[in-house]
């Protein structure tokens, strides 16, 4: 497969992912957090748009800047600016608003509802992640030397021995780069929880995509100065998406240090102060500050405020194996069990095999012959691992394990479930691809065709699960768990974001079919409801109200919110919902009306 063909396939896959997400996620309700992000996006983008007006100086001044960026300052502004600008480009106008109500404003090229337009940048980043994974997976399948057995460990590290050249370097029959690329891309995106989060105007999949991009750039930066310079801004962009990226340089430093340590030779002076890390240290902070105008007035103070917010993040509730957790100590097993419960097991096994093989290979304390011969063999400050193995297996393992290990710490809040460690999944995907390539290369005789068949077989459950779960993928579980029904039996969380709104509420069959007004919204955030209203998807006459004054009510299934359901029973005078939204029989949301039976 030529480089050009790879790029074409990667681009096609990325675009297909973005288009599918853009169209498919119009069925996905607005999650609680999106409500405030929509508001912030409009404020941020309005400010950005004013920069191109004659009001440039006033707009850039601190008062106007702070007014625009004070809202939702617990997260960096980049994705919200992008979302807001996307709406200004592509949003369809909302219907005529009534007094006191807002309507979506028309963009320059109105193609989609305002919320869908704001989700587009995140969906593009998901497409980018798919494209990058395809390229990275395909590159892993490049023909390898026949024998990669390590040379004997030298007893004396000085002088440095040249790694012995294997006797037979003719390449083994390589695994198909196309299939390897598809393995990596599909492993990641065809997971119901990844697919669900990938289409939202939130930061979890975008930061996963950015983390992947930074790691792939770092991988190149170890041997190429151009990529080393790009690493700083790339990290800055990643941090400007979400704070998870703050851990990236730490993990990269750990990887780099281990590479030097395991190379068993004294680092050159340039290797002590490598350009990739200098670029990250200098350019990343500048990029972060440049992309977040809220910081401009008081960078140190506001960064500290931001760090404090996340250090002391509130403990919300989550259900795990039938128990509601809302304060530490939280179960250490949580991220591991939830990963198993939401990622199909065969795909997970392949990834674990890849991590094991990678670590077995890369933790050997000996210099390993480098696969590429394009770089000079002498490490320099701008190409600090030139001539040395980049130890990809170790890199994938660090980035796959860290997010789960971090969440496993009993004092780390776990309210968001799997979304907190989505950054690990691209590296599971690459590890799985490495394993599949190793299997494809080693398979002989009648097993020769087995890798292709097995790859198809183990990717299907993820695709199946994703399609079945859509648009309620947050409540979807893996086949071996038993899907949503099995998870409900086990007492696993069904949702936490109030997005699974019964379709009849958003698209009533006729004007009189809307629930009686006023309605109690329960976990549907008022800002999310306002977004529906701006787009004309919420009946004007259906006003929100507290439960004791409501004539109809929503109830989202969350264990700790059972009290609210009883309040609804009392207020509505009935225990029977008029409509129950289910995923494979498992109730997600109930709609109670005033005229139902008691």
């Amino acid at each position, binding site marked *: 497969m030529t480089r050009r063909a790879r790029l074409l396939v990667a681009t096609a896959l990325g675009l297909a992912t973005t288009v599918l997400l853009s169209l498919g996620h119009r069925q996905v309700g607005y999650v609680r957090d999106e409500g405030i992000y929509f508001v912030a996006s409009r404020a941020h983008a309005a400010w950005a748009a004013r920069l191109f007006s004659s009001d440039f100086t006033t707009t850039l001044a601190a008062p106007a800047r702070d007014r625009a960026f004070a809202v939702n300052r617990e997260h960096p502004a980049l994705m919200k600016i992008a979302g807001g600008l996307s709406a200004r480009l592509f949003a369809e106008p909302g219907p005529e608003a009534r007094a006191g109500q807002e309507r979506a404003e028309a963009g320059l090229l109105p193609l989609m509802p305002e919320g869908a337009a704001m989700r587009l940048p995140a969906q593009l980043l998901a497409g980018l992640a798919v494209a990058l994974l395809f390229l990275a997976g395909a590159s892993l399948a490049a023909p390898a030397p026949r024998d990669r057995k390590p040379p004997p460990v030298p007893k004396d590290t000085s002088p440095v021995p040249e790694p012995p050249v294997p006797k037979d370097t003719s390449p083994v029959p390589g695994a198909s780069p196309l299939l390897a690329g598809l393995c990596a891309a599909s492993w990641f995106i065809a997971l119901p929880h990844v697919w669900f989060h990938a289409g939202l105007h939130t930061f979890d999949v975008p930061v996963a995509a950015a983390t992947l991009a930074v790691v792939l750039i770092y991988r190149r930066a170890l041997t190429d100065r151009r990529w080393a310079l790009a690493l700083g801004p790339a990290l800055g962009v990643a941090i400007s998406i979400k704070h998870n990226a703050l851990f990236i340089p730490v993990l990269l430093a750990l990887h780099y240090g281990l590479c030097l340590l395991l190379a068993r030779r004294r680092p050159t002076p340039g290797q002590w102060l490598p350009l990739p890390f200098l670029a990250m240290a200098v350019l990343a902070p500048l990029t972060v500050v440049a992309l977040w105008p809220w910081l401009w007035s008081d960078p140190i103070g506001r960064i500290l405020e931001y760090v404090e917010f996340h250090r002391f993040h509130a403990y919300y509730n989550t259900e795990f194996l*039938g128990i509601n957790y809302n304060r530490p100590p939280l179960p250490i097993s949580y991220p591991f069990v939830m990963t198993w419960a939401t990622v*199909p097991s065969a795909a997970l096994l392949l990834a674990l095999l890849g991590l094991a093989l990678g670590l077995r290979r890369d933790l050997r304390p000996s210099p390993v012959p480098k696969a590429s011969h394009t770089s000079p063999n002498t490490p320099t400050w701008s190409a600090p691992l030139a001539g040395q193995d980049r130890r990809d297996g170790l890199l994938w393992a660090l980035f796959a394990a860290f997010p789960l290990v971090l969440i496993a710490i009993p004092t780390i809040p776990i309210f968001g479930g799997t979304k907190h460690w989505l950054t690990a999944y691209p590296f599971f995907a690459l590890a799985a691809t490495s394993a599949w390539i190793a299997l494809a290369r080693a*398979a002989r005789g009648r097993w020769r065709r087995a890798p292709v068949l097995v790859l198809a077989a183990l990717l299907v459950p993820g695709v*199946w699960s994703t399609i079945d779960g859509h648009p309620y993928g947050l409540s979807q579980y893996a086949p071996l768990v038993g899907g949503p029904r099995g998870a409900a039996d086990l007492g696993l969380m069904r949702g936490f974001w109030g997005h699974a709104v019964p379709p009849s509420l958003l698209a009533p069959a006729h004007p009189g079919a809307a629930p009686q007004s006023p309605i109690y919204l329960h976990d549907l955030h008022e800002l999310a409801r306002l977004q529906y209203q701006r787009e004309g998807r919420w009946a004007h006459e259906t006003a929100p109200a507290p439960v004791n004054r409501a004539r109809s009510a929503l109830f989202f299934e969350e264990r700790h919110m059972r009290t609210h359901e009883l309040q609804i029973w009392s207020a509505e005078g009935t225990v029977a919902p008029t409509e129950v939204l289910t995923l494979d029989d498992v109730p997600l949301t109930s709609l109670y009306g005033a005229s139902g039976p008691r």
Partner: protein
Amino acid sequence: MTPRQASAALLVLALVAAVEWVCAARAYRAQLGPDAWTRAAEALAALPQTEPVFLGTPWLGPSARQHLPALRPWSSLAAPDLYGLPRFHVLGLASASQSGAWSSELTTDLGELPPPNLLGSEDLGSLHLYHYEQPASGAVLTDWLAEPDALQLRDDLGPCRLSQKTWSCKQARITRDTLEVSYRPRRCLAIDLADNRTLELSRPRTQLGTVLRGHLGFADFNARLRNDAPAQLELLIDDITIGRWTLSDSQGWAAFAAPTTPGIHDVRLRLTTLLGGTWTEQGYSAQPHRTACLELRALSEAPR
């Protein structure tokens, strides 16, 4: 990796993937259509109305209540336990845990009772209906929730007045309500009582059997989060204390019981909620207040 190792790994992966395909085919489709609910409704309608129906698959609750009137009464939805129920029925999803025949919630409600006898089951398609008999359940002679007029309530400052199903006193307010205790609905006397005060609930000339059984819990989730103070219960029969309990919200729907001599007796229950308020970062506040949820029944049980 050797070819042999690769073959073994591919075989394992293929087997796991094959199992996943089978599981996915079972898991990723709805099993309950309108026909299933209609069949279940018909089967439940044929049951004696005095015999409650419980869910063996608790998470089906909203759908079951939507489609099945038999699952809407408080006796099915918010029963205190399984005592006093010689016969009852359990509806569950056949493909769910324990084939929908039983649930951990029913095990909790069993208390000290032995497992019930399964008399039979009906295959209603995806749903199954199981019929149970509990010879040791005993019979309820008096339920304090059933006859509010028979209750006399007073706090430290005097008697409470019953009006529109609510008792009002100087230091307390009591209603019959359904509250959430341990994430489940429970029918009970909902008691809002001032800190460190005592509410006395009397039922003169009450028909007693061999045992008085009751439960105390605290609603709701948020209030329990902010207050773990225990409550004290004292049970008196004919002015003689026969039981004292100190119960906290960590015990959930805490059961208490005391043996009694069959006959007509005066029964009094004294509840002291030490602290009912809320601890916040600013300290203790009496409001919002945690509500106690109390129920009591006299039963006649055969010796076991």
